[in-house]
Structure formats: structure tokens, C-alpha cells
């Protein structure tokens, strides 16, 4: 089956790249004809990959370390794996310790990628086939939406644990903590508080029990950067009033300053959506900002990739490479820099107008990770394919956010009613004061 999907529009909206530079390696001129500094840059070694693949899991079978059974599931509400055969429990290896991901961010140079964050191979298929060592049958796993499958002959459970170049297999996974009952309760509570103006069809079809657990793909980025901003700022020197009665106006005098600021900083575990569709936060056309809003996650507790954590849970494949995400990252780093310098310009009581900004990215480290989300979705019919509304629950913290479609005429009627009421009161005051 050809695996084609319509082209996805470039991401826009809050915190998203506005102009995307050409991908690395697409330079149209022979580098050897270029001046040395440019040539050096073009020919600099490719980003370093940390190998996070687990050799012992290459055959797709994840075995219980005690009895060798493949019937392994995550113990609900914990980060533990449990063998359904001998009830042995064990903890997946933390990526943070395994690869030293929390350390040395201020020493980062260049682009360091964990192996699961490497570029997606264009020709890689989504279907992976395993030969079952138990019975010899061929078992297929569709890595576009699942990471595990069961041999229907001998019931061996297969997981995609090998880091295939199709970008489907991340470096790490953060297991679910929030159980389904809890997620359902949170979604119900969220919607209960938004009943009055909710779309009638939405309320009629509301079944939070249909919530699905899904692992969404993210890049977790560490960065070592410097930023500069420059602009103008004002301090009030005098305030006076002129005129009388209702014509009385306040005037201000101010000193104008030229101001610049420099800040060196590191960021630890900044999460970026690595699915183009989910990363498009344009609220005019979708409600993906809902999924973005339930960030952040306790990514420090992520465990080394192990498909057993994904048994029975669907997943979404990453489709953005590091180079595609870089503009988005720089955008967010600039925003962080601007937030950082704000407290240093407090004395400008009439505000600051930043006019220029500059970012130097000294080093970044990228880790591909699956993060756990409970998703309840509702498709609202309408022009241009309608609107897909989400209510999302962070699978670790339980933080819940949602988009509930509104019945516009009801909302409008309520607003007009209240507006009319206020108007009547104001007319009453007017009549009795003149």
C-alpha cells in the first residue's frame, strides 16, 4: 500500500518558524570553489550521533530478564515493566544517566544528535517485518502508528526495538502515569465546566471513555547559546495636567535611552513537536495549541527506548528532522532571551522597544522522545474540512487543556443580552443625572 499523505503546510503560529532555511547539504555550488571560511563551514563534519540503540533487542523480541517470556507490559501508574508470566518487575534504564544527557550543557558545541534523532530516510517504509523465532511466521508492525504486534500463531509479542532509519524509533520514552479512569475524569470535569455554550452535537456525542492513549513524537533539546537585543527605552521625568474639567489631560516628559543587552544561557530539555502537523500551532486552522499547552513533561525520567512500554498504545511517527526544527528552536531561544533580559530593564518605567536581536547558537543536543498524551477528539463539520477539537491530558502530570466547540448563536445571544442590559442601566443613569 503506498504510504502517501497530502503535503503539510509549513508551520505557523506562536513559537513557530516563519521562514525555513534550505536543508543542510543542499548547497548548489561546489564547496571547493568557495572562499575558505565558507568551505570550511560546508565541509565541517556532520553532527555527531550518540548510539542509543539496544543491541540485545535487535530481534524485536523483548524478553523478561528472569524467565524469557515476551509477555511484557508496563505496570500501570509506574515506570516499571512487568512480566505477565512470572510477575517479575524491573525498571527501564533512564536515558538521562545512560547517555549523560543532563550534563555539560554549557560545554556543548556543534550539533549533537542521539541516534533516534538522525534524519529520517526518505525511502524507508513504515512496515517492518519480523521473522518469529518461535514459529517462523512473519509478523508485520506498522511503525506509522504502532510499535508492537503479536504473532497470531504462537502469541509471541514483537516490539520495534531496533533503531531503523525511518525515524520511527526514538531514543527514549516517557511511560504513562495517568491511568485511563483518571484521564476520563479530568476530561469530563473540563467539559462539565463548559456546557452552556457548547455545540449541541458535541454535547450529545460526548463520550470521554473514547479517550485514547497515544505517544506523540518530540525532540528534547539542550542548548548553549548567547543572545543580544538592542532598542530604545524611556524613563518618565515629569507628569503634569493641563486644561480643566473634562478637557483635563495628562502629559508626560521622558528621557529616551538607547539600550542593549547581552545574555549567555543554557536551556535544558526544551520540547519541540517533531510532527509537522502537531507542530503547526496556527489557531485559525487547528487546535494543536491544545496539545502544546499541556507541556512540559518530566523528561528527566524518560527511559531508554523499549517497545514494551508501548504495548497496546498507538503512536505517531516523527516527520521532522533536526534541520527542519532548527528555525523553530532559534525562535524559541530568542523568545527565552527576551524573557531573560526583561528584569534588567525594569527601571525604564515607560517600557522598551526592542528593535534588533541576535542569536549565537554555540551547541545543541537533540534526543528523540515519545511523550504520553491522553487525547479525546471531536470533529466539528464545517467548511475546509471543519475543525478537529482536542481535549488533551498530560500522561504524567495530568494537566488538562481542551477546545470545546461553541454554539455561536447562543454565545452571541448571551453577549447581546448582557450588552443590552448594561445599556439600559447606562441610559437610566444618563437620564437621572442630567
Amino acid at each position, binding site marked *: 500500500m503506498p504510504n502517501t499523505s497530502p503535503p503539510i503546510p509549513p508551520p505557523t503560529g506562536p513559537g513557530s518558524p516563519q521562514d525555513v532555511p534550505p536543508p543542510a547539504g543542499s548547497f548548489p555550488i561546489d564547496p571547493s570553489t568557495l572562499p575558505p571560511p565558507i568551505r570550511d563551514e560546508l565541509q565541517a563534519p556532520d553532527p555527531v550521533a550518540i548510539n542509543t540503540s539496544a543491541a540485545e533487542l535487535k530481534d524485536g523480541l523483548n524478553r523478561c530478564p528472569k524467565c524469557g517470556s515476551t509477555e511484557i507490559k508496563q505496570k500501570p501508574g509506574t515506570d516499571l515493566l512487568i512480566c505477565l508470566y512470572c510477575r517479575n518487575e524491573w525498571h527501564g534504564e533512564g536515558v538521562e544517566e545512560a547517555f549523560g544527557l543532563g550534563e555539560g550543557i554549557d560545554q556543548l558545541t556543534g550539533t549533537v544528535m542521539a541516534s533516534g534523532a538522525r534524519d529520517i530516510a526518505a525511502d524507508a517504509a513504515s512496515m517492518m517485518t519480523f521473522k518469529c523465532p518461535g514459529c517462523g511466521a512473519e509478523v508485520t508492525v506498522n511503525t506509522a502508528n504502532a510499535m508492537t504486534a503479536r504473532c497470531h500463531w504462537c502469541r509471541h509479542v514483537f516490539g520495534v526495538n531496533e533503531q531503523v532509519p525511518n525515524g520511527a524509533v526514538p531514543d527514549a520514552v516517557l511511560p504513562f502515569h495517568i491511568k485511563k479512569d483518571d484521564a476520563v475524569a479530568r476530561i469530563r470535569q473540563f467539559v462539565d465546566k463548559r456546557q452552556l455554550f457548547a455545540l449541541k452535537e458535541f454535547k450529545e456525542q460526548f463520550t470521554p471513555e473514547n479517550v485514547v492513549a497515544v505517544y506523540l513524537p518530540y525532540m528534547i533539546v539542550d542548548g548553549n547559546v548567547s543572545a543580544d537585543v538592542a532598542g530604545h527605552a524611556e524613563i518618565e521625568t515629569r507628569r503634569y495636567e493641563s486644561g480643566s474639567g473634562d478637557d483635563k489631560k495628562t502629559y*508626560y516628559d521622558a528621557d529616551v535611552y538607547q539600550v542593549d543587552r547581552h545574555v549567555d544561557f543554557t536551556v*535544558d530539555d526544551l520540547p519541540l513537536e517533531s510532527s509537522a502537523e502537531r507542530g503547526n500551532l496556527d489557531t485559525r486552522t487547528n487546535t494543536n*495549541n491544545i496539545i502544546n499547552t*499541556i507541556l512540559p513533561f518530566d523528561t528527566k525520567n524518560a527511559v531508554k527506548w523499549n517497545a514494551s512500554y508501548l504495548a497496546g498504545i498507538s503512536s505517531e511517527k516523527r516527520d521532522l528532522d533536526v534541520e527542519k526544527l532548527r528555525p523553530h528552536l532559534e525562535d524559541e531561544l530568542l523568545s527565552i532571551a*527576551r524573557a531573560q533580559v526583561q528584569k534588567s530593564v525594569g527601571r525604564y518605567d515607560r517600557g522598551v522597544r526592542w528593535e534588533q536581536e541576535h542569536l549565537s547558537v554555540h551547541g545543541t543536543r537533540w534526543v528523540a522522545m515519545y511523550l504520553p498524551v491522553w487525547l479525546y477528539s471531536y470533529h466539528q463539520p464545517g467548511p475546509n474540512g471543519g475543525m478537529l477539537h482536542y481535549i488533551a491530558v498530560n500522561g504524567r502530570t495530568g494537566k488538562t487543556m481542551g477546545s470545546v466547540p461553541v454554539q455561536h448563536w447562543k454565545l452571541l445571544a448571551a453577549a447581546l443580552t448582557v*450588552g443590552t442590559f448594561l445599556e439600559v442601566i447606562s441610559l437610566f*443613569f444618563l437620564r437621572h443625572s442630567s
Partner: protein
Amino acid sequence: MSHDGGMWLLAIGPAGAAGLYWGLYRYYRNTDKSHDFEHETAVEAKPITGSEKKVGEVKGTQETRIDGDNVAAYRKRVQRIQDNTS
């Protein structure tokens, strides 16, 4: 009440209606929400450095803030100065 009769009171109706509409719409749809990465990410910054120089004065303006104030609008990008590649 003053001689012009406080005609501004007439604006209360339309303003209240519009405010209520948008407030409720946002409460339901949350279109204004996103991850507050500027404050929810672990950031370690060295002391901020910089300079300032008085370049002029403003006299008798009625504006309460500087024109184009964006000190809190972190995500509004301004002119980006790129690294010199030479």
C-alpha cells in the same frame, strides 16, 4: 455628573457585549493558550550585561508607554541580526 452628561456610558453596552463574547469564546476554545516555554524550561543564565546611553527627550506626550513597547512581547520577532560568516 458633568455637563456633557457622561456620554461614554453609552459605550458600556457594546463593550460589555464584545468583552463577554471574547471572554467566553476563549474560555471554551482556549485559542490563546500555548506552552509557556520561556518560564517553564530550565534556563541557566549568566549575569546580563549591556549598556545604555541617553539619546533624547520627549516633551509633553499623552502616551503612557513608549511607542512600540514590546518588552513583554517575547514572541514578537524584531529585526534579526545574523552572524557575520566572513
